[in-house]
């Protein structure tokens, strides 16, 4: 089966980000595919490479980046939600005249259409949120 995954909550604040990751990992281990992981609301904060969690804790952002790299997963951050919360890629930095970017490897910023497309194309869309 091919899954779409929607992550609506930020890392550490809420378990949704952990559950989404564990679900994605388990699905891949069972031989399922992931069409796309879409990050919305505070979920966009899963995609900043500037987090520094305590060393004895899981690194949620790095964990996503590794998963994307190992399994070639499309991880998309909603542009409108990202602009509100300051998640920036080099293109957004230029476009909005910011002095830095902070997007983590494996993530890209795009529009909400990517979420709807995931709903249409994937066999199931699984939502992780509050």
């Amino acid at each position, binding site marked *: 089966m091919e899954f779409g995954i929607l992550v609506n909550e930020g890392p550490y604040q809420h378990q949704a980000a952990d559950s989404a990751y564990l679900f994605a990992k388990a699905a891949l281990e069972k031989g399922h595919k992931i069409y796309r992981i879409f990050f919305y609301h505070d979920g966009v904060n899963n995609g900043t490479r500037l987090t520094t969690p305590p060393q004895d804790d899981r690194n949620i952002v790095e964990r996503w980046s590794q998963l994307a790299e190992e399994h070639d997963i499309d991880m998309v951050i909603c542009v409108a939600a990202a602009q509100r919360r300051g998640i920036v890629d080099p293109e957004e930095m230029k476009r909005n005249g910011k002095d830095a970017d902070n997007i983590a490897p494996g993530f890209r910023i795009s529009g909400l259409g990517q979420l709807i497309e995931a*709903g249409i194309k994937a066999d199931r869309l699984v*939502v992780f949120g509050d």
Partner: protein
Amino acid sequence: MSDEQVTKKFLYVNRKAPYGTIYALESLEVVLIGAAFEQDVSLAFIGDGVYQLTKGQDTKGIGVKNFSPTYRALGEYDIQKIYVEKESLEARGLTLDDLQHLVYEDEDDDWAEKDAIKLVSAKELGEIMEQQDVVLSF
């Protein structure tokens, strides 16, 4: 690859009050963008989500934009099914009269203006959910 257009049944479930958190506003943004994809779209309002549709919202005191007029545009986006859960409305002492009058034009009925809001019981809403392909919960 076939060019055949896939139409899926999308249900957006709105569970949160319009202000206090951004879920309601950002959910509405998904609905409006999603409308361009010509899917079979329904909206449901349950729990505190029913407050999203109330008339006379005034946000001056909290310095947040009042986005409630945007719900009136849903008809123009051809969104014809807006389900409001009866029990949630009643539990909050609200009736249909407290909600905005949302309409759409029915192209199968000479563009007659029809009510978009349908009051449904929790049981009926459960059945509606079961018929969906994609349920987005906000």
